């Protein structure tokens, strides 16, 4: 187990290092580099030189890269071009909102997706399975703005029961009303993001359950007198969960991408909305910091699912076998 964990941890760190390097070079190697953006042509030559020096832009690329890495290790992500606040501070303000949204979505996806997948597998070929299959095909094809627009149209425009955006109604309420208010605002964005991510979980749960149901050891369990319920719970579920958990881990990257669009539409004050606003303002330090934070969250989630898979599957944690 230890060797497996160490290997996974090393890979997580490598992934983070690669995303750091990617963003550094993407931001600097492109035609419109931050030097030109930061420096206004109407500034005097001295001011330009001073700014270049202040941001270390006069040094060779390799030195800049080393300085960037050093700053990163100290939690220094630079200063936002538009608000002049440190990027790390801006990110910390936005992060809880995105985490809240993702946590709700995860709970919904797992809580609805796994039972639905199991149902489809148990009713294979019957009506329930066919209906679920059609929904899954639609689900993997869904376009987030479309779904959000439908929700907004139905619940905010026609029925007028849910708010159109934001995370709470200003002025910021207190206590229980605040919690309820945030919950009301979270319904539509969370539902949108959950539905777009449900399909894959349902599909993988269904297919891996079908695979496991055909295994000899499930027949053995039934033959020795285990009830269908017990066979399902003890013998099928654990093994069927292995591919599902792996897929959920890989899904987090997609989910985070979807969060950018969802947060933008519903004006949810998280990292995604911040990225959208940074595009308009061409605020590169914010774009870079936001992407890094998202990568770190995705890598962390992947590490957690790797540990879960290792716990579920002794072949992985004990032997050299790869998942």
């Amino acid at each position: 187990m230890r060797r497996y964990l160490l290997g996974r941890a090393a890979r997580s760190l490598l992934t983070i290092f690669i995303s750091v390097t990617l963003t550094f070079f993407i931001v600097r190697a492109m035609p419109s580099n931050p030097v030109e953006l930061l420096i206004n042509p109407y500034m005097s030559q001295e001011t330009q030189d001073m700014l270049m020096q202040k941001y270390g832009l006069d040094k060779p690329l390799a030195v800049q890269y080393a300085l960037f890495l050093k700053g990163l290790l100290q939690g220094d992500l630079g200063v936002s071009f538009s608000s002049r606040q440190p990027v790390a501070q801006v990110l910390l303000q936005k992060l809880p909102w995105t985490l809240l949204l993702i946590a709700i979505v995860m709970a919904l996806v797992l809580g609805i997706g796994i039972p639905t997948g199991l149902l489809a597998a148990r009713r294979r070929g019957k009506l329930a399975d066919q209906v679920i299959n059609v929904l899954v095909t639609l689900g993997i094809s869904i376009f987030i703005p479309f779904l959000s627009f439908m929700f907004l149209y139905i619940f905010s425009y026609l029925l007028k029961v849910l708010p159109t955006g934001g995370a709470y109604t200003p002025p910021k309420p207190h206590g229980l009303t605040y919690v309820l208010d945030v919950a009301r605002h979270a319904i539509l964005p969370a539902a949108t993001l959950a539905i777009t991510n449900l399909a894959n979980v349902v599909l993988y749960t269904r297919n891996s359950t079908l695979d496991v149901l055909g295994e000899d050891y499930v027949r053995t369990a039934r033959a020795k007198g285990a009830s269908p319920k017990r066979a399902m719970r003890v013998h099928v579920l654990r093994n069927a969960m292995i591919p599902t958990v792996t897929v959920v881990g890989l899904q987090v990257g997609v989910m985070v991408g979807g969060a950018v669009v969802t947060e933008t539409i519903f004006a949810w004050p998280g990292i995604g909305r911040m990225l959208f606003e940074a595009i308009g303002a061409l605020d590169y330090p914010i774009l870079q910091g936001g992407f890094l934070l998202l990568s770190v969250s995705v890598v962390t989630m992947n590490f957690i699912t790797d540990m879960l898979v290792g716990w579920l599957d002794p072949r992985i944690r004990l032997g050299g076998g790869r998942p």
Partner: protein
Amino acid sequence: MNQRENFARRFARSKSGMLGLIGVAIIVLAGLAAPLLARSPAGYSRDILLGPSAAHLLGTDNLGLDIGLEILWGARTSLYVSAVAVLISVGIGVPLGLVSGYSRSWVGETLDAAVDIFLTLPILPLMIIMAAIMGTSITNVALVIGLFSWPQLAKVCKNATLKISGMQYIEAAVCLGYSRGRILLHHVLRNITGPVLVNITLIMANSVLAESSLSFLGLGDPTAWSWGTILKRAWGNNAVINNPNPWWWWLAPSVCIIVFVVCFNMLGTAINDLLSPKTQA
């Protein structure tokens, strides 16, 4: 009967596959024929926010642009972007997948690890940064999407290669002394076209979603007609929640995106079902 004819016949029997194929054909034809069918939606007219009618089949937006025309011309953008994205990801993904699946040395291992890392990165935010920096042109958007769509294809290609390279005819080819390149091109590549094809339909679908999302976020080409850009303007003008509601403005382009993606996904699923030995009679 040879295998290809057999495949075509079985494909013709699959309802969802044919539906997908017909849908894809209609979109491709409409996109190609757009300049012949209708003028480009140029200039501003006085017909502002009109509902669907005989003069404007899908209504007009707040600038008086005909949404039906915008959608027709937008199909060209979507097709162009997804075609470029497919070319780039096939160019990167297939060779990488072949080598990492066939090579038994550290090269294969390293490539495989690299592909895994790219699969975990949050791709849409990465595309956003790159598109924001490269500047908004439709070719840039296509390049960015292509540059980040290959990891999945590489993975699929690698798994298929791994399976094929264990086959006896590959062993036979090795014994005959064929070069690696020849084995990979003539023996492995020809036998993994199925999974590669399935993945290409997925890339087509996903790059349209990516293009629409990027355009929706304001990273599209302001001079090109795109379904995402129509949605962006509709959303920017509160079309979804305004009263009276210009529903045609946001509904029509959304439906087009979904139909495009569903058609390609159905096509892919049908090919996949035909290829998997479980469903073969």
